[in-house]
């Protein structure tokens, strides 16, 4: 760096140090703006990442079909009130739609489960074996049941971590144990690996899976044989999801003999749709951040411009002297631009520190996950630089255009 630029930066820093309070107040806008952006982007990123992880627990390339019409968000209170989807629907879909790698189905009810002298009320899910693979369930011990178990309506059960914790002593091995549901004994053959909360906030590990046929015949009662609470499908490629969903809709409408003017008696949601709902919320957040950032950086920039105009006026004589000894216009221009950028960069740096601290504190106090990306820091720094440059331009130009004689004579 040339001696000129270097000395000018030093001079600028010295002037800042001399007017610490004034400089601090001037920088406040930039500090707050940059800090707010960094803290909120970090919180937003953290939340987005957490939601994405939750959506991923649904499985891979999953389509869900509910009976009846549900709200746009895909959130639905309870299953099974409408009896419009059946096991034969699911089997027929798989047969007629080549895009579907597999289909599965489930029906659930909350019931009491008893082990020894302990009991627990949890959702009992009658499922097809394919449901386990579609939803990517894995096991910490034991393993899944098979088509044979389904065909023979075997009394076997898979249980989730929450259920294990509530029924068994710590360290006790559930596989091989016999639990009772509605007084029917079931042998535990697998313990499911934990998935945590769903995107809708329910505990996915509070669960018991038994073969669908067993559930129908021995647990739920036989009033609606063959009707399912929800169906699941999966595709090999994520891009195939919309097409598969459309084909499912056509097949189901035909099977249910719906007329053109009739609404669907089922609802289809793909994993991509659920992701979009979340993306929508984070887009709103981003727009809000953008607004906050713009306003505070604008306020900060105007503050810098104001203080520089004051400085130019205060130092008119000095500018005259500098011109008299040979400063050219660009020298004077540079001096004030560097002063402006020093202000905005110091403000930006303080803002970054404050923003990171804020994000960390949020994690510490509220327990929200935060992700501080290098990008947002670079962008914040860049923005403070641009603000300094832009709002320094007018005062710097004003200084550079002073007439040396008038400047020297200024009182």
């Amino acid at each position, binding site marked *: 760096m040339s*001696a*000129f630029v270097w000395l000018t930066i030093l001079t600028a820093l010295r002037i800042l140090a001399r007017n610490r309070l004034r400089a601090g107040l001037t920088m406040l806008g930039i500090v707050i703006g940059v800090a707010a952006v960094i803290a909120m982007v970090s919180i937003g990123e953290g939340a987005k990442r957490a939601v994405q992880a939750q959506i991923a627990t649904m499985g891979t390339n999953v389509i869900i079909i509910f009976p009846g019409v549900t709200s746009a968000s895909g959130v639905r209170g309870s299953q099974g009130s409408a009896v419009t989807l059946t096991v034969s629907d699911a089997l027929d879909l798989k047969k007629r739609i080549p895009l579907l790698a597999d289909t599965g189905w489930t029906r659930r009810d909350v019931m009491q489960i008893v082990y020894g002298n302990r009991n627990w009320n949890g959702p009992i899910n009658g499922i097809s074996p394919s449901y386990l693979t579609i939803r990517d369930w894995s096991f910490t011990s034991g393993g899944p049941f098979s088509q044979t178990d389904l065909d023979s309506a075997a009394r076997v059960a898979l249980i989730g971590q929450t259920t294990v914790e509530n029924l068994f002593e710590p360290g006790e091995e559930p596989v091989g144990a016999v639990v009772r549901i509605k007084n029917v004994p079931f042998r535990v053959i697998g313990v499911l690996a934990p998935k945590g909360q769903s995107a809708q906030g329910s505990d996915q590990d509070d669960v018991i899976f038994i073969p669908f046929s067993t559930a129908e015949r021995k647990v739920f009662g036989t009033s609606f044989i063959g009707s399912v609470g929800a169906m699941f499908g999966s595709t090999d490629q994520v891009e195939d999801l919309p097409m598969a969903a459309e084909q499912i809709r056509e097949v189901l409408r035909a099977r249910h003999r719906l007329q053109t003017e009739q609404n669907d008696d089922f609802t289809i949601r793909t994993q991509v749709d659920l992701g979009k709902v979340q993306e929508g919320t984070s887009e709103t957040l981003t727009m809000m951040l953008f607004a906050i950032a713009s306003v505070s950086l604008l306020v900060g920039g105007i503050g810098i411009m104001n203080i520089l105009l004051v400085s130019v006026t205060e130092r008119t004589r000095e500018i*005259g*002297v500098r011109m008299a*000894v*040979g400063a*050219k216009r*660009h020298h004077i221009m540079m001096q004030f631009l560097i002063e402006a950028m020093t202000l905005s960069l110091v403000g930006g740096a303080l803002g970054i520190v404050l923003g990171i601290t804020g994000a960390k504190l949020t994690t510490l106090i509220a327990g929200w996950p935060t992700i501080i990306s290098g990008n947002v820091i670079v962008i914040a720094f860049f923005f403070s630089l641009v603000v300094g440059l832009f709002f320094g331009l007018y005062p710097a130009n004003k200084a550079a255009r002073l007439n040396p004689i008038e400047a020297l004579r200024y009182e």
Partner: protein
Amino acid sequence: MSSLIECEDVWKIYRVGDVEVQALRGLSLTIEQGEFVAIMGSSGSGKSTLMNILGCLDQPTKGHYRLNGIEVGNLKPDHLAGIRNQQIGFVFQSFNLIPRTSALENAQLPLFYRGLSLKEQRAQAAAALGRVGLQGREHHYPTQLSGGQQQRVAIARALVTSPSLLLADEPTGNLDTQSSQEIMKILETLNRDEGITIILVTHEVDVAAYAAREIVIKDGQVLSDRVTRARPTSSPVEA
């Protein structure tokens, strides 16, 4: 070879609202390299206006001003700044040091705009302060110096670039008699030993007595121009 300064029918007209003020009215003047000139005249006669033009801070409204044979009248501001930086040193009545900045940094200022290395700037500025008798005061701030010392810093700043022309507009106007004499002795030495051309504006006869030529200005014109002291021979006086 051309003269250092050639003014030919120089006019300076200020316009304040509807009123025209003719500060210089067809002034002509020639000054050679190495001269020591005192300019006198009553207040408002146009002395400062002339000095500003001679120092390339301002340009004539009409007429010609050549510095070292170069016509200055229609040069651009940045070009004039370059000439001031290379050839001219200024000393002002009110010192005009940059506040809260050390003597050394003040003396450095013209070199700052020459793109010299920091080390070189410091060395040359320290040497210039030495020449005006301020060694040891490099890191004093203007407020820590007497008026006479401040004016000496200003002289160091003017001569740090080894200018061919030093312009001093009432340099002793704000100083007591003793400080005035000290400043004048420094200027006299610079003129005699280094051959720097000095043009000085003053109201005081004993200050003007240091110069070898006295020009009196009245109403923007030269009233009288006389040699008051034999110029030193063209070869510098041996020490």
